[in-house]
């Protein structure tokens, strides 16, 4: 169940209350997010839409512990992340967040296998256990036969699927996807969206996705619209194709 009115009982997987983010440019203050509330339960698939500059990526960065809010609180699986030190936040991200970026962000000098293995290097798993996890994750995204290829040897869609494997390999609490189809052609985008939908339906992953793409948004359980720093639930009929 996703709520944006702040009326949740605080037992949700993600609980955001009165979230605000203000940037300062010279003497001018820019309020990107203001008094934002959000409750997300495990297994939810939420899409955030909105015009450029509406604060979608900022919200995702705050939820992923990559940035700190000016006001408000974010509680994820019982952890209040807004009061964490930078060091704790780094460790928290490694354990709880899987990121999928628009431009894939694979390390070009590492193979698909090594890219997927990266987050596992932060765990206590043995080399053999890491190998099992990586092979499983790459099999889930259908790239087991490409594990020793470098990113430059893969298509855009394949690169993004490797990035998804990297995001899920540690079995994080939730996935944060920032425009995951923004750099892909239609067919590859559909494959990636299918993959994300499959993670939600088959593996009960919680996914928060920022997108401009109506086709991506329509796959989500809930569509939220962000404009002028305020979050409102949108209707699927609102999607402009």
């Amino acid at each position, binding site marked *: 169940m996703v709520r944006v009115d702040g009326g949740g009982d605080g037992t949700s997987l993600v609980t955001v209350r009165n979230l605000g983010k203000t940037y300062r440019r010279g003497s001018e203050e820019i309020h990107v997010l203001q008094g934002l509330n959000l409750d997300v339960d495990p297994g939810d698939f939420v899409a955030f839409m909105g015009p450029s500059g509406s604060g979608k990526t*900022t919200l995702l*960065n705050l939820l*992923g512990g*990559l*940035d700190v809010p000016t006001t408000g609180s974010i509680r994820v699986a019982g952890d209040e992340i807004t009061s964490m030190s*930078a*060091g704790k936040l*780094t*460790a928290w*991200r*490694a*354990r709880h*967040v899987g*990121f999928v*970026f628009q*431009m894939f*962000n694979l*390390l*070009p*000098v*590492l193979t698909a296998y*090594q890219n997927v293995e*990266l*987050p596992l*290097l*932060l765990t206590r798993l043995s080399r053999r256990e890491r190998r099992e996890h990586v092979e499983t994750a790459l099999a889930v995204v259908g790239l087991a036969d490409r594990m020793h290829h470098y990113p430059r040897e893969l298509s855009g869609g394949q690169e993004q699927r490797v990035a998804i494997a*990297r995001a899920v390999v540690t079995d994080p609490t939730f996935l944060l996807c920032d425009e995951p189809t923004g750099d892909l052609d239609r067919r590859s985008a559909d494959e990636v969206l299918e993959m994300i939908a499959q993670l939600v339906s088959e593996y009960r992953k919680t996914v928060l996705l920022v997108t401009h793409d109506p086709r991506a948004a329509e796959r989500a359980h809930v569509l939220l619209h962000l404009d002028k720093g305020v979050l409102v639930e949108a209707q699927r009929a609102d999607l402009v194709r």
Partner: protein
Amino acid sequence: MAIPLIYNVRSIRRRWTSSIVAVLGIAGAVGVFVAMLAMARGFQATLVQSGSPGNALVMRAGASSEMVSAVTLDQERIIESAPGVARHDGQPIVSPEVIVMAPFPLVSTGTDANVQVRGVSARALEVRPTVHMLAGRFLRAGLNELVVGRNAVNTYQGLGLGRTVTFGGGTWTIVGVFDAGGTAFDSEVWADATILDQVYNRPTNIYQSVTIHLTSPAAFQAFKDALIADPRLNVDVQQEQEYYRKQSQALTTLITVLGTIVGAIMGIGAVFGALNTMYSAVAERAREVATMRAIGFGPLSVVVSFMIEAIVIAGIGGILGGLAVLPLNGFTASTLNFQTFSNIAFAFRVTPGLLAGGLLFALFMGLVGGTPPAIRAARRPVSVALREL
């Protein structure tokens, strides 16, 4: 857990054009640094090895070199009867010697250079057992004959076996070539001390030094004490090796200081090269770093990763610099010894210690050049860097 090293190694390879600038800068600094010190070590070793631990050298009190010393025949007689002097068939193994400078043209340039001509006694080879004849024979007392060190033969014109040369108003025949094991004696020309004195119109009862072969190195202190305590003598007594170590000091210090200064200046340039390379690496890979930070690698991991990368680059530069100067090892050059104003040939010594020092110098440059960019990489806000193209 650290960012895997393979990431840095492959990144260096991927950006090889940029990396090579830093590598060559560091290699150049290390090469010059090691070459200069190899020159200093070679010069020092050549002189220090000239002395034997079992020999003592006696000069007039206060004399800093044989050139400015004088020891009379009477004093020489007292010295050879002192305790600790080695004997052969009852005769003391000592060599009272005189020194003159004679100009000979260099093979390389044709210009004259000062050659140290040493007037020796018939026992000179007994006093210095490491010196042996390579060709011809040793000179005979009372004749205008010369024996020439092997470096002198190669360095100066006209000093070949069987040739006659003129200097000091006398005509001399070269009857032998000796090998002194790469020491300073190899750059000398030896003549009979008495004949040399006569040719140069010097009194024949005055020498400039007396070299004594002792019964053992341990006998030195008793020998020295006996001479110092003798009221008939006013002399300085030192181990031959110590004398030659002092002889090498001025030029060795000069070369070492110059080498360090030149190396340091080149090192500063190389550090800027490394800084430039690493700053551009950090700028180009801002999004990669941000991605790793987002995944959960801490700022310290990023700093260590980039530091390792800088150190790997510097290490490659250090190894290349060392390899580049390795062929200099054993290369013979000659220079003026400031203490005696004579030309001396020496071989560069590129020792394992010097190579290790060069590598450490390179790693230090890498550390200095890598630290600021590494810190910048780690401090850049993740959310900002993720948007970098």
